[in-house]
């Protein structure tokens, strides 16, 4: 299996503080599905930021889609970022745009035609149960609905790598399961998925690789739970 992401001896520190992530060695194969667990403040979001190219490591090597992240020319970064779908912990929806426009955003910046955008976004919003809220603004939606909008925006461009930071944090178990099934569907289509969550009960219901981030290092807990 070709690696979509590979980390070798990666460490991160902010300015002159202590290393919050150290000696990270792992890879995400094409079409793999991983859960990343860990207590609050363990560094899950920092690891996510490294993966969606919002942060650079202070040591070690990161390869993403076969490219050394440090050596990727700046003008090529947008094209690589378009292959990565991100569900942010705080959703980051744009309040003055409708649900439809929020979800359509990755397609708009990629220059997709209007007709195609209309078709894809409408279908996806129906699928995540927001067909009746296409023209609603995020402030009019519940926390769970906003989360689904954020997920829809992350997956609308059929990313090769999907990163989700606590995507089930604000929804009940039924919706959480439904969202995770959506991620599984995407995974079956070849998308590599990494989900950061502290809901270990939910993780146990799926048979995917589980990593625990503790003390700044990564541990495989798939078999130990």
């Amino acid at each position, binding site marked *: 299996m070709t690696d979509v992401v590979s980390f070798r001896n990666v460490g991160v520190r902010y300015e002159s503080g202590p290393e919050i992530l150290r000696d990270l060695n792992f890879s995400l194969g094409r079409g793999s599905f991983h859960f990343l667990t860990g207590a609050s403040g363990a560094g899950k979001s920092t690891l996510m930021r490294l993966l*969606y*190219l*919002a*942060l*650079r490591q202070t040591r070690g090597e990161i390869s993403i889609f076969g490219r050394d992240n440090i050596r990727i020319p*700046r003008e090529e*970064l*947008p*094209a*690589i*970022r*378009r292959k990565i779908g*991100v569900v*942010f912990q705080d959703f*980051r929806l*744009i*309040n*003055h*745009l409708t649900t439809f*426009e929020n979800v359509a*955003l*990755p397609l*708009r*910046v*990629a220059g997709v035609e209007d007709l195609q955008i209309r078709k894809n976004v409408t279908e996806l919003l129906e699928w995540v149960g927001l067909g009746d809220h296409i023209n609603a603004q995020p402030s009019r939606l519940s926390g769970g609905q906003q989360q689904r909008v954020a997920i829809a*925006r992350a997956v609308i461009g059929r990313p090769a790598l999907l990163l989700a930071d606590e995507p089930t944090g604000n929804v009940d178990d039924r919706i959480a399961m439904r969202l995770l099934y959506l991620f599984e569907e995407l995974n079956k289509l070849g998308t590599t998925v990494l989900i950061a969550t502290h809901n270990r009960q939910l993780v146990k219901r799926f048979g995917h690789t589980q990593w625990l981030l503790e003390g700044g290092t990564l541990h495989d807990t798939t078999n130990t739970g």
Partner: protein
Amino acid sequence: MAFRAPPSHLPLESDSSARFLPSIVALMVALLTFSIVGLAALHDSVGQWSGQIEGSLSIQVPPTELANRSPIEREEALQKTVDAIIDEVSTLPGIARIEELSPDTMAALLEPWLGPDEVISELPIPRIIEITPETGFSYDALETRLGVIAPEAVLDDHRIWIERIADVAFSVELALALLIIVLFGATMLSVVFATRSGLSIHHRIIELLHLIGAQDGYIARQFGRHNQRLAFFGALIGLLIALPVSALIGWLGMRAGWPIPSLVLSPSFIALIVAIPFVVAMVAGITATRTVLRVLHRML
């Protein structure tokens, strides 16, 4: 210029720069327009004054040596000198016209101070010869020739006045030109600050657009178009304030007897004034785009 922008992904219309920028640009453009109109009017007026003064010279022939003679003898001697000067000087190159100010004209000019004609004819009044120079005229040649014909004659070329007027006019024109540059620079600085404040207000959305793969140019163009539109409307308001005020000042000037400077009414000057909002908007758009690109470049 795209003043009707497509829907923006940045809520730029709602931030404080949407109110601040047009106001500051309106104020700056009003001051800019006053300065440009003032500069043009001054330039035009100075040109007219210089033209009027430079267009004539006068030779004064004083009766200094003839004070002891009788009025008739004095006037005859003076007339002889005047005729000799006119004959000699008219042969010099660059003399368009040479003419003595007639005794009647002199008497009429002096009457308010010296009384009626009879008194003036008794007094030793200097004679005045007026010269209108043209291309090829040489002041030095005239001065040399005059020194030979009538050493007592005084040549008045208004040179000191022209130099003084030119000095003052140049200083004022320079000051106005500097003011125009400073005002334009200040307008563009406000655009930079408004853009930076917009960047700071919308930092999270910009970061989001950046992370979902928007090119820097895509984000920068949204700021550029937004600021271009705001600057255009601000400049239009500034112009609409400045023009009626300038016209009012011109009208008050006309009532006080000042001539309307012809340059201000020329098509090229009107085109320059009309172009101000477009130029300001264009420069504001470019400035905002470049500012955003510079800031984005610092992001990973």
